[in-house]
């Protein structure tokens, strides 16, 4: 480990990896630290991603793709189920990834581009100079290293502390954390090309339950519930166990995966002097789906590009890094977060009766694209009277 780099990346998930790779490819000296002993593990993810979103970043590789999804099923609280088959209209749906392999691959690519990578290496404090971040104290194997950097990328995920240490409040309001539990299961009688989403206040209050197939009768069976709905005897794992006992009594559990997904507004600012915050640490996972892989890769790459320009210009002040913040907010991703936040605020308050009628009405629509936006637009068209409470959302759609 050197004492000085152009860029220090805290966290080796997809956001950190893309920031590092992008900057290293252009010749910046980059150091990436990951506190865990292995990249990509433990998994904290349901592993789904839209096909079009992924191919923005790298060509699909069977090595880290568990399944190619062709259809999605939505199950209403009353048990009524509808099938979405955009693939019939020639449109792409999504993949279920193998994050353990995927994340490794991304960091591998960052390393090949020239990034120095250190695992079991944890940032324990920022180095502050004149009130600005100037690097970080890194602990590895019982030793402390002071690593200076012109730019630090905070890519430390949901449990992010780095930006907070540097003076930015990153607290997720507890009503806006989805508390999640998931089992990787095998021996399931499921359609291996179909994701299933279960809605309902009895099943998954202020969230949803998912079955994402991973091939050969295996699947990620998981749930996220609103933080304010969680408590003793009714936690994410309790809801999930109840569902599995009823639905998959003969399934075998291979792995327990847990985690938190923020569904709050993004941080008010994702830049500071000499620092950019990317991915889950910036609280930019999608407030409706909870998806965050694309958002992390997008902001990671953008932060890398912004760092290159800033270092070339010799100015890494907050002002010089501000294009990172304004660009992602104005992007398709930024707009989707804003819109889906507004939609989430309405949807998490709907009772089962309302959810039932919504699913019943969507089932009458022939959906050719698979996206929350298409789904909602068509829903509004098909049944305006049902959605009186969503009136104010017309402007964001």
């Amino acid at each position, binding site marked *: 480990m050197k004492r000085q780099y152009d860029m220090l990346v805290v966290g080796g998930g997809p956001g950190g990896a893309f920031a590092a790779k992008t900057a290293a490819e252009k010749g910046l000296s980059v150091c990436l630290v990951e506190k865990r*002993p292995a990249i990509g593990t*433990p998994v*904290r993810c349901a592993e789904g991603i839209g096909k079009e979103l992924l191919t923005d970043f790298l060509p699909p590789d069977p090595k880290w793709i568990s399944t190619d999804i062709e259809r999605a099923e939505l199950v209403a609280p009353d048990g009524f189920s509808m099938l979405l088959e955009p693939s019939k209209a020639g449109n792409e749906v999504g993949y279920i990834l193998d994050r353990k392999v995927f994340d490794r691959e991304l960091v591998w690519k960052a390393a090949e581009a020239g990034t120095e990578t250190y695992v079991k290496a944890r940032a324990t404090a920022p180095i502050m100079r004149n009130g600005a971040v100037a690097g970080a104290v890194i602990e590895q194997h019982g030793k402390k290293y002071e690593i200076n950097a012109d730019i630090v990328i905070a890519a430390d995920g949901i*449990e992010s*502390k780095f930006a907070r240490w540097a003076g930015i409040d*990153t607290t*997720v309001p*507890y009503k806006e954390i989805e508390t999640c539990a998931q089992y990787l299961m095998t021996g399931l009688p499921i359609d291996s090309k179909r994701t299933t989403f279960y809605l309902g206040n009895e099943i998954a209050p202020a969230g949803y339950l998912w079955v994402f197939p991973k091939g050969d009768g295996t699947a990620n069976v998981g749930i996220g519930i609103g933080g304010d709905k969680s*408590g003793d005897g009714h936690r994410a794992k309790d809801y999930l166990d109840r569902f599995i006992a009823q639905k998959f009594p003969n399934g075998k559990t291979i792995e327990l995966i847990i985690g*938190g997904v923020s569904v709050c507004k993004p941080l008010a600012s994702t830049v500071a002097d000499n620092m950019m915050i990317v991915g889950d640490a910036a609280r930019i996972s999608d407030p409706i789906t909870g998806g965050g892989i694309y958002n992390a890769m997008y902001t990671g790459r953008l932060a890398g590009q912004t760092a290159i320009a800033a270092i070339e210009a010799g100015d890494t002040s907050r002002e010089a890094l501000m294009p990172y913040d304004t660009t992602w907010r104005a992007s398709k991703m930024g707009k989707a977060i804003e819109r889906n936040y507004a939609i989430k605020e309405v949807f998490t308050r709907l009772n089962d009766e309302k959810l039932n009628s919504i699913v019943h009405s969507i089932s009458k629509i022939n959906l050719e694209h698979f996206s929350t936006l298409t789904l909602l637009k068509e829903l509004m068209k098909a049944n305006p009277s049902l959605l009186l409470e969503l009136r104010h959302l017309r402007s964001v759609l």
Partner: protein
Amino acid sequence: MNLTMLNIRRDICGYCGACVSVCPEGALELIDAYLTVEDACINCGICEKICPLGALEVIKE
């Protein structure tokens, strides 16, 4: 004198870090595979509530 304290049940904790994100005081930290709580903890109980496994408990003495 602090009469309450936050107990981390390490046998239950899955070290996912969800609690770290909601802590209003920044008192929790996830160090690789274990969770730590610092003196800044105000025993508000938010982490206890949202833990997906129920690994945290505010103990009133």
